């Protein structure tokens, strides 16, 4: 399968008062052509910083980004800002959580779609406008001919998110980064938006990185899942393996703490106790150790590496997966 994105040892540090926040601490993953990879984890786990780094949207300074991001064979981290402009919007598109603040309130929706087409594809404004109407139709906005000249405030939340998808996909990028695309929306609208994304992916062959904390959306949409905790990947694998055979206690904890609609009410929720660690002083050992009910002595000072576990391409970073774990191990 063709890999369009390969991230190696990505690290992002932010200088703040009181120290350096290590927001992303050595992340490795790849994305194949036409697949949907979900990145899940709690606020502050580094999932959004990772996503924004892919497009070099994290301002530097204050951030220091190291490692390697290869997109279609080219290194992203060494590109100049001018070179980035030819990639952003054309090769990589992004949609954000809050469509009201990420659309320009002073430009018509049509103008915001045609901007990229004129710039990247050298289209005439006539042709670009025709394409804008087509895009709005594609994402399911009724009366696209009249809607194209309206402004963001004249659209509802769901329609704005559709418009943002139209903007992001207008130049037919090979990678779409969707950062919590449905979090601000109602469930019925969420279902509409996710089905628009899936349709377009089938039609255009776009790869999607889906950043979300909603495990239901992941189960419904993703081919593969990357679970992040405290700036690191703690588990990754095919969606079914992650849900049916999670090999990291944090993944298991996440799955247990959400109630399921198809479950009997009486089963109690099992929360993950405590809160994530401070990334100014990340723990020496496993970052999840302090909240983990399966922690062992080794976890306190030794950070487990991401190693292959049962299932194709399934990896997890937990000492419990060590071949000798469970043989007379002592708990911490």
């Amino acid at each position: 399968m063709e890999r369009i994105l390969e991230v190696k040892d990505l690290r992002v540090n932010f200088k703040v008062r009181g120290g350096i926040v290590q927001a992303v601490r050595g992340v490795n993953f790849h994305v194949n052509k036409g697949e949907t990879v979900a990145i899940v984890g709690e606020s502050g786990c580094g999932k959004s910083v990772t996503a924004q780094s892919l497009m070099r949207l994290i301002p530097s300074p204050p951030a220091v980004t190291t490692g390697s991001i290869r997109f279609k064979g080219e290194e992203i981290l060494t590109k100049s800002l001018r070179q980035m402009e030819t990639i952003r919007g054309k090769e990589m598109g992004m949609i954000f959580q809050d469509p009201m603040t990420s659309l320009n309130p002073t430009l018509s929706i049509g103008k915001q779609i045609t901007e990229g087409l004129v710039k990247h594809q050298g289209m005439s404004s006539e042709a670009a406008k025709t394409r804008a109407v087509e895009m709005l139709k594609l994402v399911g906005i009724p009366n696209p001919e009249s809607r194209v000249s309206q402004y963001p405030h004249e659209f509802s939340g769901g329609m704005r998110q559709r418009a943002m998808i139209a903007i992001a996909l207008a130049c037919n990028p090979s990678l779409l980064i969707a950062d919590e695309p449905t979090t601000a929306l109602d469930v019925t609208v969420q279902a509409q938006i996710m089905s628009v994304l899936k349709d377009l992916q089938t039609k255009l062959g776009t790869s999607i990185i889906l950043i979300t904390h909603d495990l239901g959306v992941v189960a419904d949409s993703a081919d593969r899942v990357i679970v992040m905790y405290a700036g690191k990947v703690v588990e990754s694998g095919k969606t079914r393996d992650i849900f049916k055979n999670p090999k990291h206690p944090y993944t298991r904890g996440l799955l247990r703490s959400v109630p399921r609609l198809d479950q009997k009410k009486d089963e109690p929720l099992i929360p993950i106790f405590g809160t994530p660690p401070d990334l100014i002083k990340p723990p020496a050992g496993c970052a999840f150790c302090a909240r983990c009910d399966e922690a062992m002595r080794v976890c306190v000072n030794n950070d487990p590496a991401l190693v292959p576990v049962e299932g194709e391409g399934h990896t997890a970073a937990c000492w419990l997966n060590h071949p000798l774990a469970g043989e007379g191990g002592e708990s911490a």
Partner: protein
Amino acid sequence: MSNSNASTAHSIIKPSHGDPLIQIRDLNKHFNLGGGQILKAVNDVNLTIGRGETLGVVGESGCGKSTLGRTVMRLYEPTSGQVVFDGKPLYDLKGSAMKTIRRDMQMIFQDPYASLNPRMTITDVIGEALDIHKLAGSRAERKKKVESLLDVVGLNPDHATRYPHEFSGGQRQRIGIARALAVEPKFIIADEPISALDVSIQAQVVNLMQDLQRKMGLTYMFIAHDLSMVKHISDRVAVMYLGRVVELADSDELYANPAHPYTQALLSAIPIPDPDVELERERITLKGELPSPINPPSGCPFRTRCPLATEKCAKDTPALAEVKKGHFAACHYASV
């Protein structure tokens, strides 16, 4: 027309636990937007909440669920209707009688960042409620009460002198709960209490709320758009659409046998965190957008998006009627 039917509805509705603590009767809250435009945020709502019961209220943005909560709390004056709280007509109370009853009803808000005064220490945030209702005789007693409340909600009492920004979102929501509990209320309205929190923290807060309910015999109205969590915490659930309650049933019953086409669509839209289940599921995708509550459709408010709608639905507003024991739906074609 809907009034007569609706009043039969609330006389039949039996709370699942004990006698009613709250009876919401024909409640309307309309906002005058000027220029002859009236937004009917809450429209002829009848609900009863039993002592010790948790009533979940769900619906999408703009359905009126928060306005309902605020009107029941009398943060808004109603346009018409009455709420009988513990035998007393809430909207007829004045002055000190109202102040006394405010002790019995408290609210927990959605945004733990915006609902705590950033310039007050936690002692003062919680202590303020004690001061207003004169529940602490001395400074020492006030301090002791605050510390024991922090302990109840699982926070370290030594942190009482800290400010809100020193706490995480989940901890702040615990402070919000401690503040609500300070006056020893009977009834708590929680308006989206967990939607700003991470999933692992949501379960902590929900478990705490359930724990406190068992220990203190609290009655809850739990307003949320997360239907899985509402199902988990509620005894009964009311589904709202454009200011009206369109379905009401025991929570297991509602989720197993939704009778209203809107509830059916809403439930089918929620993704289930299990890829095998998701593969098999059929989704009912609703057409179009939520109509404006300023100019709602004639007849049934849901008819413009409903797959079952007929001419009858444009003419007659269906009343909330019992489709099977304890299960009510406002639909001419409710399935049983």
